[in-house]
């Protein structure tokens, strides 16, 4: 009996509880616990990834109840991949939060952080649709807490929008799950898939309605047009490490579409196969367009980065919407890029905000920031990566996606929208970079000290820069080591395209014999 699939869940859960109980021990103890736990989680995720690559999908039956009656966790390559990305991103965000003292701005940062990881990893590992709902709630509540961390009017307002829209999503999730259960009588995803494959025509309409409703729910999480309106303000106003961690949150929605719709409405689903695919592609293209315009219209850097996140998620939606194994592999490759670069960019934006004093990160003229050349160079690097300019990962990812779209009937639309939005983003980033780093107010000399304080540039607390370097270096690593990384994403895409193994392993799994169960006569 192996507990491998359960490791990414139990570790942050125990850590979260211990950190809560360590509250009287003070922030130092909590930090030590948090760092240790996250380091162990990273190690465990690497182990889990390796295990997933070497084995067929592994099943973990919680409570020792066989599927579809109990809840099972399923560890396949995609789950392990998502878990690994999450834990690496989390390590960087946590380090930054601690070094910048973000965690002391309010209560329970570390508890919320660990439980957030529990929620995200749970969503990646569960094989049960209702359990997925539960994990959506866990990560929603944890992320709401993190979003508000530190308080303030803007955070509270953005947080309200975030939680309200996501609660609408949760309600719809319940409707959809209820309907699927009502028609198919089961909640296990593999079982659902099997039953949908045999569904009589008279029931198809109901299942299609529920399936597309679920698609909307995941679309809210993935920030797909027109469901992304909660995102820009939420990401732009929360603290930097939280925004960085949230780079994975939209991917939870993407993952859910891949997993749930991939299994339930995959090739085996008969008339219902590919129910969501066209929506995915066209809404993805629309999202990309709107996001590009949003990048141009942004009034400050963090808002701009939030729209850049939208644009990169839209790229993923389009890639998945192309719906071939090659496109899927490209999408997963791009997903690594999108997550880490967006995370790094949020952290970098925080340095820039600090450095510009009262102007913060607003797009207005201000005084030069300290270490402007260094920060500016890093900004150029990040801007190139996120906008998909060579030679960094965004370019390679977009190239792979475009290449996989060649035989798609909508190729010209995909090519046109991807290239045009890239151009708009490049223009916008050149404008903002030029304003932030070049178009600076002259240093006025000989003025009164109090006056000086008002107009002077800020100080940058460079602590935690390791996180930024680590996250952004992914932009180069993905290019240099494209072959081994692409081999992994290729293998994941292949496994996803052959769900028979997944279904078989889930449904034929036998629990451990002979539990300690004695009945009263």
């Amino acid at each position, binding site marked *: *009996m192996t*507990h491998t699939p359960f490791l990414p869940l*139990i570790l942050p859960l125990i850590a979260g*509880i211990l950190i*809560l109980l360590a509250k009287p021990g003070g922030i130092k103890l909590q930090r030590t616990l948090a760092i240790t736990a996250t380091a162990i989680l990273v190690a465990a995720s690497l182990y889990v990834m390796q295990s997933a690559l070497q084995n067929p999908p592994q099943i973990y*039956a*919680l*409570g020792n*109840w066989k599927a579809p*009656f109990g*809840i099972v966790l399923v560890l396949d390559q995609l789950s392990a991949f998502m878990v690994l990305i999450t834990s690496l991103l989390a390590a960087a965000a946590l380090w930054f939060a601690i070094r910048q003292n973000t965690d002391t701005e309010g*209560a*329970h940062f570390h*508890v919320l952080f660990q439980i957030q990881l529990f929620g995200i990893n749970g969503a990646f590992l569960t094989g049960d649709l*209702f*359990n997925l709902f539960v994990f959506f709630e866990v990560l929603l*509540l944890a992320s709401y*807490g993190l979003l*508000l*961390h530190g*308080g303030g009017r803007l955070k509270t307002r953005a947080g309200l929008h975030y939680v309200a*829209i996501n609660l609408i999503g949760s309600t719809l999730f319940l*409707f959809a799950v209820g*309907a699927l*259960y*009502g028609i198919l009588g*089961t909640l296990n995803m593999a079982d659902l898939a099997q039953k949908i494959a045999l569904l009589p025509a*008279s*029931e198809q*309409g*109901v299942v*299609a*309605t529920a399936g*597309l*409703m679920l698609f*909307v729910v995941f*679309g809210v999480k993935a920030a797909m047009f*027109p469901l992304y*309106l909660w995102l820009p303000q939420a990401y732009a106003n929360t603290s930097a490490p939280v925004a960085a961690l949230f780079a994975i949150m939209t991917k939870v929605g993407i993952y859910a579409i891949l997993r749930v719709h991939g299994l339930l409405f995959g090739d085996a689903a008969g008339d*219902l196969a590919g129910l969501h695919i066209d*929506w995915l592609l066209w809404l993805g293209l629309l999202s990309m367009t*709107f996001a590009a*315009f949003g990048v*141009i*219209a942004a009034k400050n850097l963090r808002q701009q980065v939030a729209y850049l996140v939208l644009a990169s998620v839209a790229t993923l939606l389009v890639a998945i919407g192309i719906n071939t194994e090659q496109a899927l592999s490209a999408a997963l490759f791009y997903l690594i890029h999108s997550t880490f670069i967006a995370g790094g960019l949020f952290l970098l934006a925080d340095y820039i905000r600090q450095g510009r004093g009262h102007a913060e990160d607003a797009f207005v003229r201000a005084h030069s920031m300290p270490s402007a050349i260094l920060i500016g160079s890093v900004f150029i690097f990040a801007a190139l990566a996120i906008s998909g300019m060579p030679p960094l990962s965004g370019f390679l990812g977009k*190239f792979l996606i475009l*290449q996989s779209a*060649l035989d798609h009937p909508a190729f010209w639309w995909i090519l046109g929208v991807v*290239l045009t939005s890239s*151009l708009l983003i*490049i*223009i916008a980033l*050149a404008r903002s970079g*030029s304003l932030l*780093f070049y178009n600076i107010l002259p240093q006025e000399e000989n003025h009164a000290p109090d006056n000086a304080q008002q107009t002077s540039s800020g100080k940058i607390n460079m602590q935690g820069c390791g996180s930024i370097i680590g996250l952004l270096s992914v932009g180069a690593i993905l290019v240099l080591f*494209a*072959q081994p990384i692409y081999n992994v994403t290729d293998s994941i895409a292949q496994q996803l395209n052959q769900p028979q193994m997944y279904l078989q392993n889930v449904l034929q799994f036998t629990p451990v014999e002979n539990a*300690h*169960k004695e*009945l009263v006569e």
Partner: protein
Amino acid sequence: MNLLAFNLPIVVLLPFIAAAAAAYSAKFNRLAAAWVSGIATIISLALLIPAAAAIFGGETIIQNWNWLHQAGLQFAFRLDGLAMLFSFLILIIGLLVIIYARWYLAAKDSMGRFFAYLMMFMGSMLGIVMSENLIQLVVFWELTSITSFLLISYWQHRKDAREGARMALAITGAGGLALLGGVILLGHIVGSYQLSDVLASGDLIRNHELYLPTLILILLAVFTKSAQFPFHFWLPHAMAAPTPVSAYLHSATMVKAGIFLLARFFPALSGTDAWMWLVGGAGMATLLIGAYTALFKHDLKGLLAYSTISHLGLITLLFGFSSQFATVAAIFHIINHATFKASLFMVAGIIDHETGSRDMRKLNGLLKYMPHTAALAIIASLAMAGVPLLNGFLSKEMFFAEAVSFSQGNSFAWIIPVLVTIAGVFSVAYSLRFVHDVFFNGEPIDLPRTPHEPPRFMKIPVDLLVIVCLAVGILPMYTVAPILDIAVTASLQSTPPEYSLALWHGVNLPLIMSAIALGVGALVYFRRKPLIANYERHEHINAKQYFQKILAAVIRFSEWLSARFDKGSLQNAAAWTLFATLVISAYGFISFNSPLLGDRTLLPMEPVSMIAAAVIIVASILTLAWHRQRLQSLIVIGVVGLITSLVFVKFSAPDLALTQLSVEVVTIVLLLLALYFLPQTTPKETGMSRLGRDALLAIASGIGVFLFTMMVLSRDFSSISEYFLANSVPGGGGTNVVNVILVDFRGFDTLGEIIVLALAGLGIYAMLQGLHINPHSRFRINADAHPVILQTFSRLMLPLMLLVAVFIFLRGHNLPGGGFIAGLIASVALIVVYLSNGIEWTQSRLRVDMHMVIGFGLLIATTTGLAAMLVGYPFLTSAFSHIHWPVVGDFELASAIAFDLGVFLVVVGSSVISLVQLGQLSHKPENPEGV
């Protein structure tokens, strides 16, 4: 170790490494950056030399490493004649520019930054010309766009530099994206991104249905990069760059990248009508516009910029002729233009540097102040004008010859020789202006500085270039012929035609055209004053303005769209979400041919259900009607909750009914507490149109949910619940299936849910910590906050209620009840005590930190699950047994009860923590540290 196996990537990458080294070394010594750059350039050159023998022998060196084979990507470098020629131009002119820039840059300019950018640019250019893999070529192509952005905006405090750089980036960046598209298509047609394969598949490409889009996309890249009409306008604005940058970018490198691509893809793409029209048309237009406009520019660099545009048009036009001879001429002119234009830019920089002005209306008669420079400038200008004995003459002569021979095919094509002669006329005129206006033509006017010769080393690069102009012009066969030959061979991918580089071909049409150009050109120059006056009287089409107008329109549109769609309003976001749900889900139903309702027989309506339904409907409508009176609407929401629990009772779900009831009580109390801090009424904020939209959405959503529910409920139902009923006792050890599901079958869901509850409690604590809100004044009417009767009563009730909670908890596994309901009951008991006695009173007696209660609750629940793992079962596997207690009798003990205890504690802790936080909001000042 064979150097020829890996020298090419080093040649390309060395400048990038040198860039980092230059930036770093400049911290210690200003000049170190220049030295590092120069040495790196020399090493790169030296590394190319060993390959030269092979290349001149007609070989092509290809060095390959795998990058991503599934996608056809390789790190692949190629050196053939064409690449060799361009590499030499890039490196040698680069070296001269480095020497020149070291003297040109002022003390306040950052040397490190300049040379770092310059070297990165050099590396990118080398990458373009030496790429064998086309995607790799695109990478370097875009890198030149980026590095040129950095170079042009080098003097970042200047608005024109920033704007010029952004414009160049936008135009050439767009071209790069088009190139990516074109190359992907090309790779698709050929099945490989390797240049060798592409060049060998010319016929396949030209006959493919994707030929035209491929061609257009690639030509977009060429035209944007090489400043061809109508994308030429970025180039003059790039003149805001320091002059060494202009000398480098606009003679041998950046703008030649597009031309290089024409030469490179010539065997693969040329020879079709589309090619001739597009390439030739753009080239001709650019040639004429550039030559004409150059004459009227008063700025030295402005004149040179338009002259560059015109010469680029000339080369493009030659490629457009699509003949082998024309290719020879084109490549020859690439070399010649690079040499004379680089020297002229450097001269312009010297003049600017030593006089402080570039305005030809002020710069006059410099001959006597700087005779050496003047000599250099005159020779280079005459080469530009195409005067015999200079290199420009030779290639221009070949150009005229090609124009004549092309015109013989078509009855309308006689216009071509005429047009190119006109361009030649203007070319002579502006060259004369450069010479005569600056060095002769009277005395200088109001110059900021007294002109004098520049430092010696600033002139040396120009000296060398001018010598080349002369050498090639006089002795072409002994100088340029070998490299021209291999470059043409590589471009054509076949043996070049027989051509002659001789000075004298006898009196023929091209010679006459040259003579006309020289004569009329001189005439035009000496009649320039009325021409210039006339030019300045008219408005001219200013492409920059169009570009900026389009850009401004895009920005305005973006802002408009963002303001309309992403308003930052919750109602707007919610409306879009609901709308999308309705449309997308409804589409799901109508795209399948399923009946709306199933054939299950519905239960008969009976009065009790009808009344319940009616009450819910009325209560919902009242909520809507009273939503501005917050208290009333809360009360009617409570009615909805109560009826829901009654519905559960009716359908024999006592657990759900109990849960619903207690949840209802706790939430209403919490909401009441929250209302305490809010105004009693909601102001009117929505207009009629919004109300209409919302009403439509609400009605549609209501109908949608109703239909959706009916679809499901009217169909027959069979589910896995049979299994739960059958296994509840043997597998879960309890007769209350609901509870067994909660703590055993789906215990993991419950664990998740109590975590959600815990998060809610902790979240409320974190959010409200440190917050102080004054309660709304109208609530302060009741002075008696804690009525005595209520106080006494609640204190009496507390133990009773807790006992009930314990009872409900213990029986949970077999009869309705369980940890969740028990927790809620206990919470209600505590809440009543808090409310009636006040928070201080209660807390002084209940000295438990609710954080710890939540923490231990979670810990107990989790540990119960972990215990199973210790004995080799999955997490949360339950175990149960029965023990015999004296008096009580047989008592069943299930591990699930420990789990349920965890649930109980979390529920109590979270409810109480929320309540206390809310209740304490107005007391915060006395207790700023929180609980």
